[in-house]
């Protein structure tokens, strides 16, 4: 399903990229109101310095977010992203419109070229969404924890939302942590639960089209990279002696280890490949989901620009498809959270090998 999602996304992206160009050509390239699907989609899935909610007529409704920069020229500076509203320059900083740094804040270097400030820890749209999701998650979990604390265990099992939450918790503990990690599973349960619920909540929030949701959080590679780094730490910080022995001195013929440490090299490579796979998988799935939904929505505007009759027919089809894809994405939201947690647990379990060589 992942592959087909990506394939579909790529296909639609191609369709979307070609269609407007055709319409451009047909309309003698003068009509600037034609829909640029690629731009729409990329603007959505990429990070931004403000949270654009909607455009009402000519008025952009968006939430300005704080920009925090460190540059050799100005030192630490912080200001609201409102200053860039109309493509203006502020303190020598502006948002680049083309090149490698498109959409990012740049300043003019000494050589006259655009360059990024040394440190840019602005609270961007994705950072803001991460914060929002984090707050929602913490509030939900702490409220549920408080309910448990208050009611104690002697009362009947919870129903409704708390019951569903408990079901997921029990699923992560009993179906993911226990079977994959083994005896030491208790140490990793909080991390797995946090990762699972953070990813699941972020995925779901991404499916909500308006403000607190709709941001492409888990479809951003930095976010998934942070999660993958956490899993990497969870795997390697508590790996036991057997794990490190298998990396640096595995049970293979001597010539594979000495003089060229071929197997250790492969094992060390594997250490990084595992979380890298997690990072790419989650990122690609969610990005593809967002892209597909947006592409289907954009079909309406693209075909409307070509012909009203075709546009009307396509609208129905497109809405149906978008609804279908949204349902699929709810499933994907769960599955990807599950898969990330499951594979994290599997990798953690691999870092806790038992002395199986001695058992035989």
């Amino acid at each position, binding site marked *: 399903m992942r592959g087909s999602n990506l394939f579909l996304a790529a296909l639609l992206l191609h369709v979307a990229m070609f269609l407007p160009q055709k319409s451009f050509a047909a309309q003698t390239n003068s009509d600037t109101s034609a829909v640029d699907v690629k731009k729409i989609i990329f603007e959505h899935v990429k990070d931004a310095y403000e949270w654009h909610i909607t455009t009402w007529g000519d008025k952009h409704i968006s939430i300005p977010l704080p920009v925090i920069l460190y540059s050799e020229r100005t030192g630490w500076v912080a200001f609201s992203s409102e200053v860039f509203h109309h493509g203006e320059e502020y303190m020598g900083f502006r948002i680049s419109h083309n090149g490698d740094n498109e959409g990012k804040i740049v300043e003019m270097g000494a050589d006259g070229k655009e360059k990024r400030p040394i440190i840019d820890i602005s609270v961007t749209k994705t950072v803001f969404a991460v914060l929002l999701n984090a707050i929602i998650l913490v509030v939900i979990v702490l409220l*549920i924890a408080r309910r448990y604390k208050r009611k104690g265990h002697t009362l009947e099992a919870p129903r409704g939302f708390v019951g569903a939450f408990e079901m997921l918790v029990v699923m992560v503990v009993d179906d993911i942590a226990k079977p994959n990690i083994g005896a030491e599973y208790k140490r990793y349960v909080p991390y797995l639960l946090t990762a699972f619920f953070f990813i699941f909540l972020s995925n779901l929030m991404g499916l909500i089209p308006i403000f607190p949701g709709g941001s492409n959080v888990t479809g951003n590679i930095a976010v998934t990279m942070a999660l993958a780094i956490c899993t990497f730490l969870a795997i390697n910080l508590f790996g036991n002696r057997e794990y490190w022995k298998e990396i640096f001195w595995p049970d293979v013929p001597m010539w594979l280890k000495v003089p060229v440490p071929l197997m250790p090299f492969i094992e060390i490579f594997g250490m990084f490949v595992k979380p890298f796979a997690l990072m790419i998988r989650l990122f690609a799935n969610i990005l593809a989901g967002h892209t597909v939904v947006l592409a289907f929505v954009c079909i309406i505007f693209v075909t409307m620009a070509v012909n009203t009759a075709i546009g009307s027919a396509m609208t129905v089809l497109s809405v149906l498809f978008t609804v279908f894809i949204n349902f699929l994405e709810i499933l994907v939201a769960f599955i990807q959270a599950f898969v990330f947690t499951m594979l994290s647990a599997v990798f953690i379990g691999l870092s806790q090998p038992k002395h199986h060589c001695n058992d035989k």
Partner: protein
Amino acid sequence: MSFLLPDAGLLFWMLIVFGIVFFILAKYGFPVIISMVEERKLYIDKSLKSAREANEKLADINARSEALLKTAHEEQARIMREALSMRDRIVKEAREKAEEERAEMLEETRRIIRMEKEDAMRDIRRQVALVSVEIAQKLLRKELSESTKQYSLIEEFVDETMNKHQDK
């Protein structure tokens, strides 16, 4: 494909936020939920166990009461049997005793009757003897008034006596 390159600022924020969320949830959130779920599980197990034990106890009590009832029934039957046999025995004894007494009384009565009869017989015999002596006297007095008759009577007696002796 700039979105394939992780942004350092975002990575920084994400690590911090996720770290804080992890810290808070790992300390105050999930352990509470998990421990409560565990405790509830134990509680349910315990409750099931005690319910099973209670059932067993109940079954035990039922069995015991049934056994008690059964022995009571047996006891009742035994007592009834005993009572019946005792009644029969008493009745039999009473009847035997009555029979004995009756027999005794009958015997006594018979004895008395026999004695009375003997007495009466004796009396009668005496009376008869006296009467016959008197009759004999009277007859003798009347008969002996004539000498011939006396002789003939003596002869008759002698004959009789003789015949008697001869018959013997």
